[in-house]
């Protein structure tokens, strides 16, 4: 595993000068992932915030080959790129060892791009798929996705006199990817660069489809002061709202078990999107969230055999 000094000396693949908001943690996730990849890489991107902020013609933040085609198809596009690589390598037209990384937001991964992702996984393409999960469609103005937490206020799940925000718990996409039986699936959080670096390095060594779901807070959509993002990401892990774990060939490993699980309210109260839940009339919703977080955590512990 590369240490901080080594990482800092590598050529930056996702460079500064892009147009992400100050305090944008998806941008940090991109930098960490690409720095951890100590190979020549080709990057594919789904439409979304990070695509938009990183490549406004004639500028590009990408120091590596990059392609963006559409919102829902990055997994299919990278399936094609990887197949081209296989074909050209077979013919002796390419000799380098190249790695392929597909990036999508939660919208481009959990929702509209899910079919293509499932197809890529089933066909066994040698691609690392990274979901930078900021828990809503940020690029189009903070609409709910199937990754948006229960109770969160978004532009399409506004809080009104009869509504309290999103009414569904997020889809557990990481588990769905585990169910695909692919060799490597992990959850990571942007606050723990060491863990993320380890996961990317490990994933890139494995042949076949890999999936890493990274929680990456968005200052605009979650409504918190720009400098608080890392703390908030950390809280997500400490409250077990977002456990970090990996599943290698079906074997679970929880990478961080909080000694004392913090109550979910600690996480909720850091973000404007949950502000309404702090009112006494919504106390029962907070309890409901706590229950679901506990249930999922217990289930994960069970899966990990602990």
């Amino acid at each position, binding site marked *: 595993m590369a240490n901080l000094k080594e990482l800092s000396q590598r050529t930056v693949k996702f460079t500064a000068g892009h147009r992400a908001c100050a305090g944008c943690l998806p941008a940090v996730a991109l930098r960490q992932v690409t720095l951890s990849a100590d190979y*020549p*890489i*080709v990057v*594919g991107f789904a439409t979304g915030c990070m*695509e*938009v902020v990183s*490549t*406004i*013609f*004639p500028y*590009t933040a*990408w*120091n*590596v*080959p*990059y*392609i*963006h*085609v*559409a919102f*829902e*198809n990055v*997994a*299919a*596009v*990278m*399936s*094609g*790129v990887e*197949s*081209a*690589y*296989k*074909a*050209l390598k*077979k*013919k002796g037209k*390419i000799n*380098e060892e*190249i790695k392929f990384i597909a990036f999508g937001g939660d919208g481009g991964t959990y929702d509209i791009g899910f*079919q*293509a992702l*499932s*197809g890529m996984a*089933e*066909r066994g393409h040698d691609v690392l798929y990274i979901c930078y999960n900021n828990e809503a469609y940020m690029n189009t103005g903070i609409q709910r996705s199937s990754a948006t937490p229960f109770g969160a206020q978004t532009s399409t799940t506004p809080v009104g006199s009869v509504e309290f925000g999103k009414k569904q718990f997020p889809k557990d996409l990481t588990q769905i990817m585990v169910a695909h039986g692919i060799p490597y699936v992990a959850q990571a959080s942007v606050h723990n660069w060491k863990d993320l670096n380890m996961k990317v390095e490990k994933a890139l060594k494995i042949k076949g489809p890999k999936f890493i779901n990274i929680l990456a807070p968005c200052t605009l959509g979650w409504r918190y002061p720009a400098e608080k993002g890392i703390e908030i990401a950390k809280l997500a892990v400490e409250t077990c709202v977002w456990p970090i774990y990996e599943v290698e060939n079906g074997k679970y490993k929880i990478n961080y078990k909080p000694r004392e699980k913090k109550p979910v309210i600690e996480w909720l109260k850091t973000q404007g999107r949950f502000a309404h839940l702090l009112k006494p009339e919504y106390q029962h919703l907070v309890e409901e969230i706590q229950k679901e977080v506990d249930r999922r955590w217990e289930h994960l512990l069970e899966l990990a055999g602990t």
Partner: protein
Amino acid sequence: MKVMALTGNEAVAEAMRQINPDVVAAYPITPQTELMHRFTEFVADGLVDTEMVLVESEHSALSATVGASAAGARAMTATSSQGLALMWEILYIAAGLRLPIVMPVVNRALSAPINIHGDHSDTMGARDSGWIQIFSENAQEAYDNTIIAVRIAEHPDILLPVMVTMDGFIISHTMERVEVLDDDVVKNFIGEYNPKYKLLDVKNPVTMGPLDLQDYYFEHKRAQAEAMENAYKLIKEIDEEYYKISGRRYSYVEPYEIDDADIILISLGSTAGTIKDVVDELRLKGLKVGGLKIRVYRPFPRDEIKEFLSNASVVGVMDRAIAFGSPCGPVCLDVKASLQGTSLSNLPIVNYIYGLGGRDITPKDIIKIFNELEKVRISGEVPNLPRYVGVRGEENYIEQKAKLKIKN
């Protein structure tokens, strides 16, 4: 060269075997299915080096083809109807990214109601998507056009994707005599694919598909329009080269008995063959009729259309698709637009919509069309709304309109 008995699908699969694409992505849809059955047999028998990507939808089929092509590989896919409709978003992107993808399209009607048979609604829906479109009259042409398309698409002054179409079932499932070139002749003709920019050139990284706003988007689109103009100029040179290796000379439009023809009937695809037979028959009876087949539909052969219609008295245009709400069918629109502002702008043109959902178009139907056009020639009365050919109730409808004195 060898002569083989092949269906249209098999003929195109044979062309694909000889092209030996690096990557083929595909998803099944009738009537394209047999094409990919045959091609995957070639893959299974090691007759091609192709990486076959059997995707989970046509949207992904074209997306994977786009990825492969951008990576630097020669990449193909094929589809029909709903599959092409599902690709719609990526059609524009493939063209906008200037990727030289070749895609056979086996023409089929669009839902609803669902129907698996041949008409041109699918391809016509994609006519302005930035793809070059070449129509084939028979299996031989489908084979030849597929090979020629590789050279057109990859020409450095064109770099546009190409659709090669054939009528579903009528061509795709009919066994014909097809002259197949030798493998090495095709290999030499298409040459190696070595694009200037490719994702797999990791030492020279490029960003493909960036956000392109008010300050540059328009220039890029303008350049794309220019590429289509270049195609219009350059396809003839590639056709000429193909003639040299095959002895078959193709042109943007193919005139048939047109020199002294008063009445000319324009068509695309397999119907052109039927029209040729009818022209022969009517010529024996002394009628001065001719046919004009459009092979290259995008870029539209506007100058050739003008040239070949210059001595006509009346023109009929056959459309195997409806452009709903438009004054006439898509081919007719293009023909009329090409003549507008020229000495032919008053040439009487009648539009015939026919054959939807695979409805047969018979020599009898075409004789009727020529007879009607002859009446138009004599009377000078030109119906300016489309005529629907071979559809139940249409005769009554026209009679009724006559009774009610509704013009057209």
